[in-house]
């Protein structure tokens, strides 16, 4: 039930009528139905199974991170974060890869469906938690945040656009082709991905969603897991954090 909370706020922003907007009445009906039964639940469940079978589940994760199992939710709500033994600010998916390597197993690719599912499962352990990202905790997370913010604001690509061109405060709610521009903080983007994306009929992660905007706006698509992508995730997650958005995975998106 709790995962329904977030999408209701979204429905309010999406429930425009008239054909100027992308969601038809039929789409809206389907969306309402999916709220009852998010198709991403299956992915999250299978992610949990793979995580348990291949990686040893929560116990193994807590041990790897050096925290107690019952501290996991709060700790996960602080990702992306600096992990000393990995030498970088990393996402949950990269931690899962490192666990695999430590256990002598093959790394699951960051952009694979299995990884998206596992990531969704692990992040959902922090459901209902507020983000606990402290960008002043150490110089590494500070640098990652700064790189993320810079990446967000840097215009590039065939049309000379930056993320900020479309996601700055002064144009939130305006309409780009038939899409109202979302406020990434108020819509709690950082807290609601991984999500089921109706238009793609699959589970997508936050970094995968960033790639979608890059592709659409003709910015060169940068790889998942790069320092810039992790930085963007830090930056966008802190926007949700400032807006006190609780983590609610999996989200449900147009």
């Amino acid at each position, binding site marked *: 039930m709790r995962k329904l909370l977030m999408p209701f706020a979204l429905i309010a922003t999406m429930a425009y009528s008239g*054909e*100027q907007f992308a969601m038809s009445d039929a789409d809206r009906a389907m969306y309402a139905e999916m709220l009852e039964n998010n198709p991403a639940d299956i992915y999250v469940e299978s992610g949990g199974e793979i995580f348990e079978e291949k990686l040893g589940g929560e116990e193994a994760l807590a041990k790897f991170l050096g925290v107690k199992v019952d501290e996991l939710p709060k700790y996960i709500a602080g990702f992306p974060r600096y992990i000393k*033994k*990995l*030498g*970088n600010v*990393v996402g949950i998916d*990269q*931690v899962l*890869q*490192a666990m695999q*390597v*430590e256990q002598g197993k093959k*790394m699951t*690719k*960051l952009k694979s469906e299995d990884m998206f599912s596992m990531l969704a499962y692990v992040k959902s352990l922090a459901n209902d938690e507020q983000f606990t990202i402290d960008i002043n905790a150490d110089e590494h997370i500070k640098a990652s945040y700064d790189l993320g913010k810079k*990446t967000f604001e*840097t*215009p*590039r*690509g*065939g*049309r*000379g*656009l930056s993320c900020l*061109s*479309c996601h*700055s405060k002064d*144009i939130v709610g*305006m*309409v*780009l*082709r*038939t899409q109202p*521009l979302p406020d990434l903080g108020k819509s709690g983007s950082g807290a609601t991905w991984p999500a089921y994306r109706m238009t793609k009929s699959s589970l997508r992660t936050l970094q995968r969603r960033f790639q979608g905007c890059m592709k659409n706006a*003709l*910015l*060169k698509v*940068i*790889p*998942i*897991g*790069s*320092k*810039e*992508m*992790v930085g963007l995730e830090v930056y966008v997650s802190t926007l949700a954090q400032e807006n006190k958005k609780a983590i609610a995975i999996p989200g449900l998106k147009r």
Partner: protein
Amino acid sequence: MYNKMTRISCVVAVLSTTVLLNATDMTKAYSMPDASKLIEKDLLKPAQKYSMPKGCISTDKDSIARGKYIFHNLNGKKAKATPPKGLAKFVEKKGKDGKMVKKPKQYGNCVACHNIEGAKGAGNIGPDLSKYKATFIDTKTRDHAFVYQKIADPRIDNPNTHMTVNLTTKLFNEKEICDIASYIVSEKK
């Protein structure tokens, strides 16, 4: 004696596992691909001022038709109607291996932000460009050179613009910018 031995072997066992763990360098135990070079090559060049080529703005039907097509479409893959004379849906580009590959031509998708006569699903981030000639050109509020520069590189007029940059990015060539400008300032039904 026996006790001491087990203790020692325990210590040895602990030591050797630490050594083993250290042997796998955990700082390389995950993927973190480089994006900095990709970004570096993709950066937007500084704002540039342009002068309009001779005979740029025309009432030529084909020129206006091309401008209109570029204005209303995103790219050659998405565009449904047949493009007008002098405009292609696909262009040849050099691929990674040096071979030429066919890619959809990118268009302006101006309608994403601007309303104009006959627009479908227009956005409202930019001003409505309907009745542009009567409102701006005939009243001398704007001239052709302004429109040309605005489309080529809008940052000269407004450094903080939300609008796309179309000539400095080489998305279009001069002739195409002229086609688009001709369409905007043309008399429309």
